[in-house]
């Protein structure tokens, strides 16, 4: 971490300069592709509007992630303790996971969203984000070393002790990898759900994106996209950091 690789920074700067130069040289209409300088200006100008919206979206994504971690781990624990439940329900969970989220979004919004879009968005994001947590936690719980398992039985460990001293530490690296995937997915889930909800009621970033699109403010759209990308990167970076802490 101490040696920062300057190659991608340099490549980024070159690309931005090319973008700026070419859009000016070829006189590309800013509605089609605004130059980076215009996007920067839009970011500053629309900042007071975009930043709170980004906060709302990030808040929703983090809430969805937290719910997914809790729910996924809990269900994994239940499945691990009662294999019959896993055998009977596992295939249906897979069906839910395999269904594209956009397709169920209108349904969920009809059921819960009309008076409460925030709840609908959370439900949709959790549906996408919970599966990587569930599957990784389940894989982690099943990865318990049989030798250690025997040792815990020898010492008559209670089921709480087993969980805290054996299952949780065994599952932790698996779970973290799942959470990393889930973090990205919860952001995707929130954005997609905001699109489908098609209402500014929650005031999230993707609503601002749609709004700017309708007004043909392309530079603002890019500014919003930039913020979304930044949020995704931040989530990833934080979780990678935690992962590193756990590994050592």
């Amino acid at each position, binding site marked *: 971490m101490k040696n920062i690789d300057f190659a991608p920074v340099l490549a980024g700067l070159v690309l931005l300069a090319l973008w700026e130069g070419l859009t000016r040289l070829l006189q590309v209409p800013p509605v089609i592709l605004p130059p980076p300088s215009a996007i920067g200006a839009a970011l500053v100008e629309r900042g007071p509007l975009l930043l709170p919206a980004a906060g709302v979206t990030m808040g929703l994504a983090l809430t969805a992630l937290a719910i997914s971690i809790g729910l996924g781990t809990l269900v994994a624990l239940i499945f691990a303790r009662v294999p019959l439940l896993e055998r009977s329900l596992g295939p249906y969970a897979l069906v839910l996971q395999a269904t594209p989220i956009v397709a169920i979004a209108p349904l969920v919004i009809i059921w819960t969203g009309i008076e409460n879009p925030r709840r609908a968005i959370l439900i949709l994001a959790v549906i996408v984000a919970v599966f990587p947590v569930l599957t990784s936690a389940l894989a982690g719980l099943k990865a318990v*070393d049989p*030798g*250690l398992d*025997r*040792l*815990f*039985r*020898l*010492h*008559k*460990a209670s089921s709480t*002790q087993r969980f805290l*001293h*054996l299952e949780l*530490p*065994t599952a*932790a690296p698996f779970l973290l990898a799942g959470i990393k995937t889930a973090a990205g997915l919860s952001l995707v889930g929130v954005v997609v759900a905001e699109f489908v909800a098609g209402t500014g009621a929650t005031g999230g970033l993707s609503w601002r994106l749609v709004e700017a699109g309708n007004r043909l403010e392309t530079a603002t759209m890019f500014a919003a996209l930039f913020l979304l990308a930044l949020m995704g990167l931040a989530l990833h970076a934080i979780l990678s950091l935690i992962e590193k802490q756990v590994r050592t």
Partner: protein
Amino acid sequence: MAASSPIRLSAQQACVRFGRLEALGPIDLQVQAGECVVLLGPSGCGKSTLLAALAGLQGVASGSVQADTAGGADVPGVVFQEPNLMNWATAEDNVALPLALSGVDKAERLGRAQAALARVGLANFASAYPRTLSGGMRMRVALARALVNDPSALLLDEPFAAIDELGRRALDDLVLEAKRDRHLAVLFVTHSVDEAVYLADRILVLSPRPGRIMAEIAVPAVPRDPAFLTSPAFAEAAAAARRVLSAQRAAA
């Protein structure tokens, strides 16, 4: 062994079945405090099963097994074939696990874990993680963990099979030292005749499945040192064990 030493491990007509398969027995066995009994036999004869039954990890179909709990611990110390260490925990936390599971408070269990590590020559490795330790050192940690809660009996299931010759001798010596210093009853499973003779006060040779005791070989109570390995007493006991084993093979 003095006849008055209390019996720490015993089996009476113990049989173990896996479904319809008769795995073991009937077996009668007694191990006194301060005595090392070695179980020797072909693979699959149920040596490990008998050990698991005495540890309370395997139920018996008939008869009974008993591990005395006169010491500080309510279960015998057990060392398995693998060190079975928690790779996310330091050597000291690994050793302290049995104490943690029985609710001993943190300061006391770390103190006892450090003392146990010192006795197996790992005083300086308390905060080392298992992946940084050699195979022999990991086994020492496992041995320290088996002894940390002062059990009155120690069960070892082919523990040092994967360790090189010299490391294995050192570990054998640690077992003998623990037996002597703590007046432990030791039951040791191995398929190495030399290791059996080196460790044992008595060797019990088991038959192929279902395992029964075929022969008992007493090893003279002389000091266990390098000289013992080349002594006539050692050669005689080893030859006796090998005779029983090859007679078994011929009969099979």
